[in-house]
């Protein structure tokens, strides 16, 4: 395990630190611990480089230091009736904007307008040799140069130290309403998710909890419109549809990965599609110490596991399905699970972005 975490207070201190250490892993508040440890690297936390630098509500953009807590951003945006539609994860746990980008995590709201990658416009970061790189831009539309910001979404801190981030934001819908739809089977749930996703309703989120065989549908917009749409869904699926008065707590439990009553300290993200779900969901149901939540209309699954033992099983199952997963919480040996394709271009890109090999290999 790494030694103490260095916490530079400004850009100069960060550059000095970068120059003095041979291998560095940038971290935020380490809310996704398996991604924020490395036994050979000096951990450098960006948490003191925090705060919103620019916010122009009428531009739909803001720029913040990488160490800014997501909670702070959410609050400032909310004051101006705006938001990050992709539901950043682990907000209460203390996630920073930089950590969210590095981990590439998006919550249930990803369904409607796209994920973190789609709202990230620009990044100022330090390359391993201390150079300041300004990638992307600060306007909502920009096609100049390579889209390095997108590449950094999910790059796990292995290519540079992000210092400032510019995001696109959207107007916050005035109301949200959620209903729970009881399903009879996985197949039934998948059919209903698909029907809902292709419907005229333009839903805000479509999630599924296999444990209770329930699909959760969220509408967002003016109250009177939400009510009409919810009524239509209720008429369609009859008694299977139940209102969710405590919906906000439910969605928050998904975002915080803490919906389970059991002590399931490990959490993994798995990008999914129907073939993977048909293998993953039955496994989760049959395995003690595993609780699965399917989000974004079946595009991603979050697996909570009790111990490394279940994570190992999951690793095996994903490998069989040629699918990659990422452990984001828990005391685990290796965050990469399942099948990660090895391609020559990956090492060439690593050399291009990090010629001095300042950051650990993925």
């Amino acid at each position: 395990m790494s030694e103490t975490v260095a916490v530079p207070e400004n850009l100069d201190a960060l550059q000095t630190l970068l120059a003095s250490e041979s291998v560095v892993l940038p971290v935020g508040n380490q809310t996704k611990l398996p991604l924020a440890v490395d036994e050979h690297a000096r951990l450098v936390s960006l948490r003191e480089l925090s705060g919103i630098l620019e916010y122009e509500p009428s531009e739909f953009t803001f720029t913040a230091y990488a160490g800014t807590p997501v909670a702070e951003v959410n609050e400032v945006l909310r004051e101006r009736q705006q938001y990050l539609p992709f539901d950043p994860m682990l907000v209460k746990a203390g996630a920073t904007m930089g950590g969210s980008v590095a981990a590439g995590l998006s919550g249930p709201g990803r369904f409607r307008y796209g994920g973190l990658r789609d709202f990230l416009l620009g990044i100022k970061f330090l390359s391993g040799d201390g150079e300041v790189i300004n990638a992307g831009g600060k306007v909502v539309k920009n096609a100049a140069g390579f889209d390095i910001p997108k590449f950094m979404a999910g790059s796990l801190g292995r290519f540079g130290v992000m210092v400032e981030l510019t995001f696109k934001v959207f107007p916050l819908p005035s109301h949200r309403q959620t209903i729970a739809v009881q399903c009879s089977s996985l197949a039934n749930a998948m059919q209903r998710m698909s029907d809902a996703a292709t419907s005229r309703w333009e839903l805000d989120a479509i999630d599924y909890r296999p444990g209770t065989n329930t699909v959760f549908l969220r509408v967002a917009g003016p109250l009177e419109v939400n009510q009409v749409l919810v009524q239509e869904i209720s008429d369609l699926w009859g008694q299977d549809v139940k209102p969710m008065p405590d919906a906000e707590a439910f969605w928050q439990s998904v975002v915080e990965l803490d919906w389970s009553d059991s002590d399931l300290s490990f959490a993994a993200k798995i990008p999914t599609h129907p073939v993977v779900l048909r293998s993953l969901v039955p496994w989760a149901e049959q395995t003690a110490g595993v609780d699965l939540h399917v989000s974004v209309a079946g595009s991603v699954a979050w697996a909570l596991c009790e111990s490394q033992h279940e994570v190992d099983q999951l690793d095996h199952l994903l490998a069989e399905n040629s699918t990659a997963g990422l452990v984001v919480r828990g005391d685990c040996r290796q965050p990469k699970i399942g099948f990660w394709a090895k391609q020559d271009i990956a090492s060439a890109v690593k050399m291009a972005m990090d010629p001095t090999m300042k950051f650990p290999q993925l």
Partner: protein
Amino acid sequence: MTSLDGLSSIFPSQRFVRDAAFQAAFESDGLTAFRAKPLAVVIPETADEVVAAVRWCHENSVPFVARGSGTSLSGGSLPVADGIVIALNRLNRMIELDPSERIAIVEPGVVNQHVSDAAAPHGLYYAPDPSSQSVCTIGGNVAFNSGGAHCLKYGMTSNHVIGCKAVLATGEVVTMGGRSVEAVGPDYTGLFCGSEGLFGIGLEITLRLLPKPERFHTVLVGYQSLLAAGDAVSAVIDSGLLPGALEIMDALAIEAAEAAVACGYPPGAAAVLIVELEGPEEKIEYERRQLNEVLATTGAFAERVAVDEADRLSIWRGRKSAFSAVGRLSPDFLVQDGVVPRKRLGEALVRIEQMSRESGIRVANVFHAGDGNLHPLIMFDGKQQGALERAEELAAKLLRMCIDMGGSITGEHGVGVEKRDFLPEMFDPSTMAMMERLRLAFDPKLVANPGKMFPSTEAPSLGLSGLHPLEKAGVISRE
């Protein structure tokens, strides 16, 4: 002269073309000011043939330019004089369309509009809608991260590309992303999108499809000044609405469109604003009331609400034809694609007007006002000595203004040949150096679309400019 023997053995003779007359069709693209004649044009019909051609180019250090329909407005598919063109139009298979997963997997030569056509029976569509969508191909859209009128709400092409199998310039075949909109690890798909053909060629592209909006509410509003139209955009945005499209045209652009397609825009308007809301019936009913209230405060002198789909399309026809219509006002023109922060739109327009006056060059303006994406249209007569150069000087000033205002030199057309000298003005040396290193990682021999995006000494020959042949025929139009 490079021997092309190895390359010619990959293709049957009718798909390995060195015939001068045939090649002439590939000399130029949507940026007609530039042209260059390639050594040969190869026309693969399978992904394996593309891979073989790229590997041959890599091994023999022969440059290649991948090309779809050649509609690039930045000269992105301009051939290289000592290289080959890989024409991808025959790789036009829709490999898979899965309505339940809401994805389509397509070959690069599939035409943008055809994806939406194929998805339509399932109530789905492919959101990015460049104005050339009736002919432009997905491969080119991916390479240039194309935009369209609906980017504010749904983003550009890269927001809709979730996976891509590609042959890189080294000949390595890679799979990026997959069938899920979510992924783990660095986003290679995102990096590949918008790489302007410098990394390689997409072979199988996985696209995200969206449900077709149930209802559109399209309003055309006339203003006595351009500034008032710009202020109206801010008012709409500040009201909390998120329109699918927010477009402005100035008097000159309106005049051209009117002459070309008789679109019936309000006579005497100094500017028109098009606002389009889209979504479920009830939501649009609610939002249109909100929009009416906002527009009522903006000093508009005329308003036309599309009463049906035909009427909506007629409003859009004026907008979408505007640029090719300018061909009626001027024998030649350059179209620019700069971006400024939305709040500085008014200031930018005043400065454009000033530059136009000072230089004596007429400039028409059409723009995606919602995202600050300007399309100034610089008119000139190529037959007059030095006219093109003067127009280019004005274009350069406009681009520098966008950079100074904190915007971008391109919102959706890409850098290509046209703006390559401006990239180092937008990005500092260390960022440029990193982009150059990235390019070399994908293409150590610099064979993939050389001369694009990065400043280069290889200047393509300037030729006649004017409307693209397809524009003249009214098949395509510019954003």
